[in-house]
C-alpha cells in the first residue's frame, strides 16, 4: 500500500515536471543519458599542457587547461591543437584522478586536432567512435570535459545544426569540414572534449563557442577526426596535397549555366595550378575522373578535402569547363605547407620570427617563399633599437639571402659567436624594402620580469 502511494507520487511528480516544461527527462531518456555518460566518462582526460608562447619578441611558457578523451587501451588521447599545440610538456589527469604525463604525437592546425600518448603501461578505458554523417538536428548529445577547469563535467543538449558552414574569414577557419552546432553547454576548458550521442559514441570534438552568444557551441565532426588521428598516429602529421586553387560555390557566380562543378575563384601565382594555366572563373567538374559539385557553400569543405587528399608528387587530372568548353589539365600536387610556420626566439637581439609560409608569402606579395617573418620585437632590445618591426620580412643578413628559418638560425649562431659589431638586415616592410643595422654589442635592456603563472587559461 505504502509502496503504491509512493509510486503514484513519483508518477504525479513526473507529470508535473513535464507539464511545467522543466527540462527533466522522462525515465527512459534519463537512463539513456546515464548509460551514455557511463560509457564515456571513464575515458575523459583533463589536459594541462605547458605551452610555448611568443609574445612581444620573447619566448614564454604558459600553463593552459583543456579536455581530451582516450581512444585506445594503450593510451592515445585526442584533444584540440589549440590546447596541446606548441606544448613542451602535457600533464593529464584521468577520470580516476591519476596524474599521467603525455607526449604529443602530432598536431594538425587546419583541423585543430592533436594526438597525445599517455606514458603508462596499464590498460586504459577508451571511447567508442561513432559517425557524424548521420547526425540530425534535434538529436540529443552530451558534452564532457573541464569547463573553466572544472573536470568531470557533463552537459546535455541537442544538435542544433549538423553541418554549419562558417566563413573562412572568421577565426573559425575550418577548410575541410562543416561544424556540428550544439546547444549543450560548452565553455572555455571544454575544448578537446567529446560530443557524445545517446549510444555513448563520440560524434564530435568540442572546439569553439560563439562569444557573446548563448548555447551556440561548435564541435569538429568525428568522421574527419578519425582520418586525421590515423594519419597523425602513423606519420606524426597530416600530409595534404596542394594545387593553389580556392573555390566558390556555383551560386556565387550569377552567369554560370553549368549545373555541375565548382567555381575556381583564386589561383595562387606560385602554384601548380598557375603553371597549368588554370584561371579564376574556370569551373572544376571532376578530379581524376570523379565528379565534384558544390552548389552551396556547405558543399565547399568536401571539395577542398578532395583536393587535399590528392597524393603529393603524383599527377592529377582535373576536368574543367572554360567558356562552356570542357578541358582537361594534368598537374602534380605539391605538399600543402602549414598555415602557421614554426616560430623561434632570438633572445640576444630581442625578437621572434617564424617561417614564411605560402600564405605569408602571398600576402606580402613575395615573388617566392623566402625570408623569415618577424612575429614580435622586444621593446628596448637590440632589434627594436635598430628599428626592426613586427611584420617585417628579413630577406638578407649581411648580404646573404635567408631562404628559411634554418638558414637564419645558422647565420645568427655564426654572428653571435663572431666579432662583428654591426649586422645588416635587409627587410621587406609592406610594399617597401629597408635596411636595418643591428648593433650586436649594444647594451640590451634587461628582460621584463616574467608574469606570474596564469591558471585561468582554459581552452
Amino acid at each position: 500500500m505504502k509502496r503504491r502511494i509512493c509510486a503514484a507520487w513519483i508518477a504525479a511528480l513526473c507529470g508535473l515536471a513535464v507539464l511545467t516544461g522543466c527540462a527533466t527527462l522522462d525515465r527512459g531518456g534519463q537512463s539513456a543519458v546515464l548509460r551514455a555518460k557511463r560509457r564515456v566518462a571513464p575515458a575523459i582526460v583533463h589536459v594541462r599542457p605547458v605551452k610555448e608562447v611568443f609574445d612581444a619578441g620573447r619566448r614564454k611558457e604558459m600553463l593552459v587547461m583543456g579536455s581530451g578523451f582516450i581512444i585506445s587501451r594503450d593510451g592515445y588521447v585526442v584533444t584540440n591543437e589549440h590546447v596541446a599545440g606548441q606544448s613542451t610538456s602535457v600533464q593529464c589527469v584521468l577520470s580516476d584522478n591519476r596524474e599521467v604525463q603525455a607526449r604529443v604525437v602530432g598536431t594538425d592546425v587546419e583541423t585543430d586536432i592533436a594526438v597525445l600518448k599517455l606514458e603508462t603501461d596499464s590498460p586504459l578505458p577508451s571511447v567508442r567512435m561513432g559517425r557524424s554523417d548521420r547526425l540530425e538536428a534535434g538529436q540529443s548529445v552530451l558534452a564532457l570535459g573541464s569547463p573553466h577547469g572544472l573536470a568531470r563535467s557533463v552537459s546535455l543538449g541537442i544538435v542544433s545544426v549538423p553541418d554549419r558552414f562558417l566563413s573562412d574569414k572568421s577565426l573559425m577557419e575550418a577548410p575541410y569540414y562543416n561544424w556540428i552546432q550544439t546547444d549543450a553547454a560548452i565553455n572555455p576548458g571544454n575544448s578537446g572534449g567529446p560530443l557524445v550521442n545517446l549510444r555513448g559514441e563520440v560524434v564530435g570534438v568540442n572546439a569553439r563557442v560563439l562569444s557573446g552568444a548563448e548555447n551556440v557551441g561548435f564541435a569538429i565532426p568525428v568522421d574527419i577526426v578519425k582520418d586525421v588521428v590515423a594519419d597523425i598516429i602513423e606519420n606524426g602529421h597530416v600530409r595534404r596535397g596542394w594545387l593553389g586553387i580556392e573555390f566558390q560555390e556555383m551560386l556565387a557566380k550569377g552567369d554560370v549555366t553549368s549545373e555541375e562543378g565548382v567555381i575556381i575563384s583564386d589561383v595562387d601565382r606560385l602554384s601548380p595550378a598557375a603553371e597549368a594555366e588554370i584561371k579564376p572563373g574556370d569551373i572544376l567538374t571532376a578530379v581524376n575522373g570523379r565528379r565534384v559539385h558544390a552548389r552551396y557553400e556547405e558543399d565547399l569543405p568536401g571539395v577542398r578535402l578532395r583536393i587535399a587528399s590528392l597524393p603529393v608528387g603524383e599527377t592529377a587530372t582535373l576536368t574543367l569547363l572554360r567558356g562552356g568548353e570542357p578541358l582537361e589539365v594534368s598537374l602534380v600536387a605539391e605538399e600543402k605547407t602549414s598555415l602557421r610556420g614554426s616560430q623561434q626566439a632570438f633572445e640576444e637581439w630581442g625578437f621572434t620570427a617564424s617561417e614564411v609560409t605560402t600564405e605569408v608569402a602571398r600576402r606580402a606579395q613575395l615573388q617566392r617563399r623566402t625570408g623569415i617573418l618577424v612575429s614580435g620585437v622586444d621593446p628596448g632590445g637590440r632589434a627594436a633599437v635598430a628599428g626592426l618591426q613586427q611584420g617585417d620580412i628579413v630577406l638578407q643578413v649581411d648580404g646573404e639571402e635567408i631562404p628559411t628559418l634554418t638558414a637564419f638560425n645558422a647565420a645568427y649562431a655564426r654572428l653571435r659567436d663572431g666579432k662583428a659589431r654591426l649586422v645588416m638586415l635587409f627587410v621587406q616592410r609592406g610594399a617597401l624594402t629597408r635596411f636595418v643595422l643591428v648593433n650586436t654589442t649594444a647594451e640590451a635592456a634587461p628582460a621584463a620580469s616574467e608574469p606570474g603563472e596564469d591558471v585561468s587559461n582554459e581552452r
Partner: protein
Amino acid sequence: MSAERFRSLAAVLLFAAVSAGPSRAQDDFALSTINGAYERLSPSLCTVLFTQEVTDARTGETRRRDGSSLGLVVRADGLVVTHGHLVQSNAEPVEVRVRLGKGAGAKEHPARVLKKPDDINLVFLKVQADAPLDLPAVSFSKSPLVLGEPVAVFGLSGETLDLEPGVLVARVSAILDEPRTTYALDGNIRFGYVTGPVVNTRGEVVGVVGFDLGRAEGGELHTRSGHPLVYQTELFEGHVASPPSEDASPGSREEAWLGVFTQPLTSDFAEYWKVEDTGGLIVSTVLPDSPALRAGIQSGDIIKSFDGKPMEARQDRDVLAFTQLVRDTGVDRTVSLGLLRAGQPVTVEATLSRLPATAQEAGEYDDAVLGLAVREITRDVRILLNLAEDVQGVIVRRVRPGSPAQAANIRPGVIILAVGDQPTTTLAEYEAALGQLREKKPPEISVFARVGAQTGFFRVQPRY
C-alpha cells in the same frame, strides 16, 4: 561693490598684469600692437560655411554635414584660405559659401574650392561674385620667429559669441628646422583660430595657424598632427601668388618625381659599409616604372650628390628635405646623381617625371546601377595596400546603403578586376563595362574582384 566698479578694477588689474611682464619689447605685446593689428586684420577674417559629404571608411556610407570654419582673405580679387579639413580623403565639400563683413553689413558669396595643395594642410577658395571684387587682403611678411616669442593669433570666437573676431596670445614652443622651418605653438588654440593670421610683437603677419605637416612621399609617412603650428609665409606664398587650379585633374601639377625611398646614412651605416662618414641617402626601395628604375638606380646605392648638390643626410628629416628638392627640380629635367655602389663612385643620369597622382586626385566613377563609387588605383594606394604591379583594377570607394552592391557584400577597399566578362583594369574600362550593362540590362552579373590577398566572384543583381 557695484558690478561697474568691479569691472573697472578688474581691467586695471589685468592691465597691471600685462604691463608687469618682462621689460624687453621683444618678449611681450604692447596692447596697442594687438589692437592695431586687430583693426587692420579683422576685416580680412571671414566665415566659411560649408556642407561636406563624409564617407564612413568602414561601411562606405555617406552622410552630409554642415560646418563652419575661419577664412582669411589673402588676395583682393577673392582668394580665401581656410582649414585643410574642408577637403579630406573621407570628406568632400559639396557647397561652400563665404560670409564677409559683420553685423548688418555682412554679405554671403558662393565660393569655389581650388585643388588642395599636397604640401600643406590648407584649402584655397575663390569667392564668386558678379562684379570684380576688391576685398581687404592680409599682407604677409617673412620675419623669422624665435623660441619662446609671443605671437598674437586672430580668429573667430565660438558661435555663442556670434562668431565675433577675437585674439589669443601664444608662444613659440619649438622650432622644427627641417625640411623647412616650422614653428610649434603652445597654448590651447581653438578651432575658430585655425588658419588665423599669426602676428609678431612688431605687428607683422608672419603666417597662419595650421595643423598637420603631412607628407606622404619621401621615405616615411611623416605627420606632425594634433599640435598647432605656424605655417609661416614661405610655406604658402607660392600658392597665394599663383593659386591652385580649379580643375582637380592630375595633369595640373608640376612637381617632379624620382621614385625612390631613402634612408639617411648614419655613422653606423657608414662604418658598416666602410664609406666616408659624411652623410648621404641610402636607396632602400626603387619603385617600379619610375625614373630611378630607368636610370638603373638600385637599392643599396648611396646618393652622395643630386643635380650637383652634395647630399649629406644623417637624420630622417633630411630625407624630407631631399624629397622637397626633387619636387622643386622640375619635371622632365635630366639630372645627374653621384652614387656610391658597393663603395665605388658611380654617376647616373635620371630624367625626372611628373609626380604620380595621389588618391585625392584619383578619378572617380559613381553610379546607381551597382550602387558603387570606384576610383582608379593611384601609386600611393598601390604602396599602402602592397599591391603587386599585375593587380590592375579599380578600387571601391563607397557602397550605397541598400544598393545591389551592398546586398552582394561588396565593401570599400575591394578591387574590381572585371564586371561580367569585361576586364576593368582602368576607370575608363569600368565606365564602358557599366555602359554595356545599362544597354543590355542582364538581370544578374558576376563581378570578379580581389579582397585582400584573394580573388573571388560577387553575384550582383543590378538595378536599372
